[in-house]
């Protein structure tokens, strides 16, 4: 099974869908470059982080922990916890992906899964997810993340602080832009996302969890609210 587009058309659909991601990624990646540079991390290490790790939150926290002189174990474990949520996301994408996507393709496409590429991919309109669509989307997102990092590293001194702190909101604005239209047309989306917000707030603000990483809060809130929602959804859909 596949959708009605050619491989090339699917690739271009992916490229187009990635434009808003690039708009959100470039300022954040610039901010990452600026932060890493001002923290004294060598530029080639920061550039390599964006190229090999390719996970915004982990890179920011990684730089912070390096500056704080945290142990390597602490840094690696924090990164791991923070990125466990991608386990759920790729599990979801793995189910949507067309059968033609071989194991090799899957090794490649898995590298490109981020919060943003995942969200855009899961809301694409075609019933079958083309591997070329994913490839186009992931490539543009990855390129823009690396491009932004270099800009930040090379032009670190030219950026006013005001602009730097205002750019931090870009990713969140994108999450909002992805979620709100879904909430309007699909009631379970409203219920489940509200539930996740409540659980994450409880996790963050109640003094139950000590100083566990915020990555756990996101994972816990995601799993619990989707599990509760699925209890009702599964019933609806089998009727």
């Amino acid at each position, binding site marked *: 099974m596949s959708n009605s587009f050619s491989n090339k058309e699917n690739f271009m659909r992916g490229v187009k869908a990635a434009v*808003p991601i690039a708009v959100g990624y470039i300022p954040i990646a610039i901010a990452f470059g600026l932060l890493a540079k001002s923290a004294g991390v060598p530029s080639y*290490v920061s550039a390599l982080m964006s190229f*090999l*790790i*390719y996970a915004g939150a*982990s890179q920011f926290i990684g730089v912070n922990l*390096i500056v704080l002189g945290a142990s*390597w174990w602490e840094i690696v474990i924090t990164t*791991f916890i923070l*990125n466990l*949520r*991608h*386990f*759920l996301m*790729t*599990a*979801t994408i*793995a*189910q949507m992906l067309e059968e033609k996507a071989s194991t090799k393709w*899957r090794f490649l496409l*898995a*590298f490109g899964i981020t919060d943003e590429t995942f*969200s855009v991919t*899961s*809301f694409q309109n075609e019933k079958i997810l083309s591997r070329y669509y994913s490839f186009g989307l992931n490539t543009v997102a990855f390129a823009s993340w690396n491009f932004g990092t270099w800009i930040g590293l090379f032009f670190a001194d030219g950026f006013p602080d*005001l602009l730097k*702190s*205002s750019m*931090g*909101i*870009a*990713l*969140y*604005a*994108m*999450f*909002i*832009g992805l*979620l*709100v*239209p*879904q*909430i*309007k047309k699909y009631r379970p989306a409203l219920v*489940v*996302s509200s*539930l996740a*917000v409540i659980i*994450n707030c409880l996790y963050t603000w109640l003094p139950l969890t000590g100083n566990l990483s915020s990555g756990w809060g*996101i994972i816990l*809130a*995601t*799993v619990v*609210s*989707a599990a509760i*929602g*699925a*209890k009702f*959804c*599964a019933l609806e859909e089998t009727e």
Partner: protein
Amino acid sequence: MNLIYLVIAMALVTYIPRMLPMVLLQNVKLPAYVKAFMKLIPYAALGALIFPGALTSAGPDHMGAAIIGSSLAILLAWLGTNLILVVAGGIAGSLLVNLFF
């Protein structure tokens, strides 16, 4: 040189959770409940990612900028504006607050 090993270790623990389900869960038929669970994961994950993280997204001393920027983004998204403009509006809203307050 040592930092490079750290980057490689971080890259591995980032890639593994991305890769395992992608490779292992191909052509597996899942029960209806698990399917519904996975269908809801994007909404749940986005909710948890947005709040309360957005409050501190403009830095610890700029919560007002973050709230105004996020609210503007919500408004634009609710009106059905293009995603690029939602992002641009969020940045602009937060920049304006930072400029004038």
